[in-house]
């Protein structure tokens, strides 16, 4: 069974640019989560999809972040326009039941 995959693994962009991160969950997992770890801090929840619906987006920092999961399969997280404080590692996780979450390798975003 393939694990959670994320693309790209690393992205370097300038402040003000747009970046789109992609997550492919494990096949059959209805639950998909986005998290972020800013340097030196803990992993923080961003949002949770159940199929294509946003179940909880209480962790989204502001309206520069937009997450979608059209069709209930893969998800994208777009940051527009990116700011310096958006730098960090963005993790995606998926779960069949909502309990055990399987994490992807993360996308390291660097905003300069």
């Amino acid at each position, binding site marked *: 069974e393939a694990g959670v995959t994320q693309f790209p693994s690393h992205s370097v962009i300038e402040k003000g640019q747009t970046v789109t991160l992609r997550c492919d969950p494990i096949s059959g997992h209805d639950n998909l989560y986005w998290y972020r770890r800013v340097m030196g801090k803990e*992993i923080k929840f961003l949002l949770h999809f159940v199929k294509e619906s946003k179940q909880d987006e209480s962790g989204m920092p502001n309206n520069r972040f937009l997450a979608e999961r059209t069709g209930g399969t893969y998800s994208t997280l777009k940051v527009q326009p990116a700011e310096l404080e958006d730098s960090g590692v963005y993790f995606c996780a998926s779960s069949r039941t909502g309990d055990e979450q399987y*994490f992807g390798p993360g996308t390291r975003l660097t905003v300069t």
Partner: protein
Amino acid sequence: GESVGLHLPTLSVQEGDNSIINCAYSNSASDYFIWYKQESGKGPQFIIDIRSNMDKRQGQRVTVLLNKTVKHLSLQIAATQPGDSAVYFCAVQSGNTPLVFGKGTRLSVIA
């Protein structure tokens, strides 16, 4: 809201010794607790979990202990091996609320 505290940011142990990594949480309504291992360049990997109706759960070489009275969670690794070197995170959940992570403990195994 929930907060998850860290007792030690780093821990060094001799190969073959037992390791104990601790977490403290604040919300007495928390009912699901998970330990993750993160190796360099990888995402967090599930190790073991425990629900609030238990106080101990064992896996292969790992044991999680939950003390709800003092809101404390620990991960014990028996006979620590070099491959156990990683950052270990605890995560806590209450009902269907999002997971709240601790900052992580970096475990270094000395051969």
